């Protein structure tokens, strides 16, 4: 790892691109739109419902195929972590449920999610499972259901089973919400979602090479917008941004990869970058472990043509880079190292959400693997809330200074 001097100035490039005077024209307008959706996704959902008169279905993790919801003419909405402090979940669930999962429950208890006509859970983790129990018992939305999701992701049996299970869930949605499945719409949804994910992947690749050094905080806003806006509108906005990138130069901020589970806290990402780091790539469940999904290009099982869309959905979602709640999780480490290399990142920032069991166990192994690869890593444990603290800034600055000293441990 080559050391280099840091001016001590705020990072010029990524920061400047995000600033009002750094952006102009169509690209700037597109960015402004994506940013506004990313920072206030529920307002966007309200607009969508008002304009289209469609129902909306919430979901919580990146293993849930939004195409399934769209195929019923329902708007999918990934409920993001609001990051607000709200004690009211304690009346329903213990404090050792992870704060991100509790946050989702708190939003429902506050009434913030009243726009949702239903929600769909997967097993994902034991904290979300607890939230599901409360949601279900308290009927926090008119429709509450869950996919009996596989945990093992590398077998043909899991693909076959999930394909069947998705169809059973689809039948229940159709019945409960009087929203029949439209096979044509399923195929169109798959195509539309593939398109938008491919564009996000393109943006990520251009950020990684600094061809389009959009601030990491803005990239997070794009990720939120991607699962909030109607796909065609999102695709149009992101295409515009990609075609007319606002002016900006990569600064001398130290590029790092952000690794974790979900991470929707844009303000916290901005705080991280203001310590002189550039979030050059992400290893997040809602980021690079999601936007690589390509359903349409899934090969058929041996001897079968054409690919059944349900099977393609199941296969694509099961074979994405795995989260630590899945088995096997080992490809995650390769994925992370690959991201570091592709983005020429100098280190990894591992964000460990408090009480996240699977990440707590994954952490020592990722740490050791990164050490073997000679990649410095810093772990930050937090609750996905707030906008950073003085203590965090100090640690982040110390981390950045390691690279100025030549990447050695300091």
């Amino acid at each position, binding site marked *: 790892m080559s050391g280099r001097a840091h001016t001590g100035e705020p990072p010029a490039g990524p920061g400047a691109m995000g600033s009002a005077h750094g952006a102009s024209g169509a690209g700037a307008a597109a960015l402004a739109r994506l940013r506004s959706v990313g920072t206030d996704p529920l307002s966007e959902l309200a607009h969508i419902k008002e304009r289209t008169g469609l129902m909306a279905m919430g979901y919580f993790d990146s293993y849930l195929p939004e195409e399934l919801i769209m195929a019923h003419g329902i708007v999918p909405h990934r409920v993001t972590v609001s990051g607000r402090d709200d004690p009211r979940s304690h009346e329903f669930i213990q404090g050792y449920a992870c704060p991100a999962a509790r946050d989702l429950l708190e939003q429902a208890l506050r009434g913030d999610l009243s726009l949702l006509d239903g929600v769909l859970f997967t097993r994902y983790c034991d904290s979300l499972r607890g939230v599901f129990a409360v949601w279900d018992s308290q009927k926090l939305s008119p429709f509450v259901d869950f996919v009996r999701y596989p945990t093992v992701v590398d077998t043909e049996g899991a693909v076959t089973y999930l394909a069947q299970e998705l169809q*059973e869930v689809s039948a229940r949605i159709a019945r409960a919400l009087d929203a029949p499945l439209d096979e044509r719409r399923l195929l169109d949804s798959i195509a539309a979602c593939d398109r938008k994910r491919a564009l996000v992947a393109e943006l990520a690749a251009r950020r990684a090479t600094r061809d389009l050094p959009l601030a990491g905080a803005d990239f997070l806003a794009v990720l939120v917008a991607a699962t909030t806006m109607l796909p065609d509108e999102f695709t149009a906005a992101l295409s515009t941004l990609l075609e007319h990138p606002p002016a900006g130069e990569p600064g001398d901020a130290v590029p790092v990869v952000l690794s974790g589970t979900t991470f929707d806290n844009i303000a916290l990402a901005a705080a991280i970058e203001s310590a002189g780091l550039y979030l050059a790539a992400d290893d997040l469940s809602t980021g690079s472990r999601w936007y690589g999904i390509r359903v349409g290009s899934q090969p058929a099982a041996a001897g079968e043509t054409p690919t059944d869309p349900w099977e393609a959905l199941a296969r694509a979602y099961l074979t994405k880079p795995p989260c630590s709640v899945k088995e096997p999780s080992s490809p995650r480490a390769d994925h992370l190292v690959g991201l570091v290399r592709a983005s020429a990142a100098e280190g990894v920032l591992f964000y460990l959400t408090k009480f996240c069991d699977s990440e707590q*166990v994954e952490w020592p192994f990722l740490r050791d693997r990164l050490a073997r690869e000679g990649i410095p890593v810093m772990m930050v444990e937090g609750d996905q809330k707030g906008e950073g603290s003085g203590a965090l800034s100090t640690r982040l600055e110390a981390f950045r200074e390691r690279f100025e000293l030549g990447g050695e441990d300091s």
Partner: protein
Amino acid sequence: MSATGERQPMKRLEATRSLRSLIKGYYDDLFRTASEGRPSAWLNVGVPCEFFYAMDIFPFYPENYGAACGALKITPQLSAVSEAHGFSADLCSYVRATLGTVFSGEGPYGELPKPTLQVSAMNSCIMIMVWWRAVQRHWEVPTFVVDTPLVRDQSEGINLDYVESELRRMVAWVEGQTGRVLDLERLREVVRLSNEGKEIWSEVLDLRRARPCPITAADIFTHMFPMVALRGTPQYVAHLRALRDEIKQRVDEGFAAVEGERYRLLWDNLPPWFDLKLFDDLAARGVNFVIDTYTQAWGPRYMGPIDEVDPLRSFAAYMGAGFLNVQIGRRYDLLAELVDLYGVDGVVFHSDRSCKPFSLVQVELRRKLQENLGIPGLLLEGDHNDQTLLDRGRAWSQLESFLEVIDGRR
């Protein structure tokens, strides 16, 4: 009231003596198996030991081992070892204790022999999977996960087909790893013994309905071991028979395990293994936990008799709808049924910080029980294996207040 006031010592079951030699024999076998180079497997409680006895592979249950560490109050020391390796202090205390032994070779039995293989099932928690994963990576032990997707209340249809196919995959994998072939006839023999013991266990649980109750919660928790680790062996049947006969005799004689039994309570969740004395101390106040939910996991509702004709299908049905693999509705129904059957005055919900799947529904269960049946519940913060997470003084005063609530209702 004094927590340790003068009273007659509790009369322990005679069967506890033979239990000690049973446990000693089991650990002797474990070490003998290793020294003779015969195969052994680490299994979690969701994986039926019957398959492994039938294949002559020694089944070892780390959860059971963890409880032994808890009983000896050495979890904090072992946890310090796993924390030094980077594993969070928030992980399940079973995991911290066992990993501490794996990393240091320290523990109640010294260094544990490295198993030939590991199998876990997803029907308890995510923690199990990542626990086995940690051992797999550290010791490089071949590891298999049996997928059992979370269900609402039963495993049926495609879900049952999938779990059965997972069991077949497990058998083939174990055969491949060990070269030992599963002989169905041998499995049936083991199943016959297993069923016999389960029926006796069910009688034991039933005998607790007597007024006064013949045994305490400490008695029954102590006698879990054969149900977990020895199902399908002759010594398991013999031990359970002796246990049942002794308890039956107590019932016939009108013996009261708690003199002047005044409060018939239900204990929800794992017990604090490091403090089974809590139950004795409460006995001085006339409290007996006449029933609990934990031992029900091995009871007829969740681990009933296996169909000898089609054992794999039958195992799959129980595994797929294991105690922690079903939803809050079934947990509530069980509580309501037990409250009625055992004449319960109140429920102590042990909010076990380690165990999210068991605990995170308790706030809601307590509310429902109070609302629907008028049965009061106490949420008691603690942990099943780490004594530093139980504030004994606070717990005691909460329990005292709870007894007053029950008195107030009489």
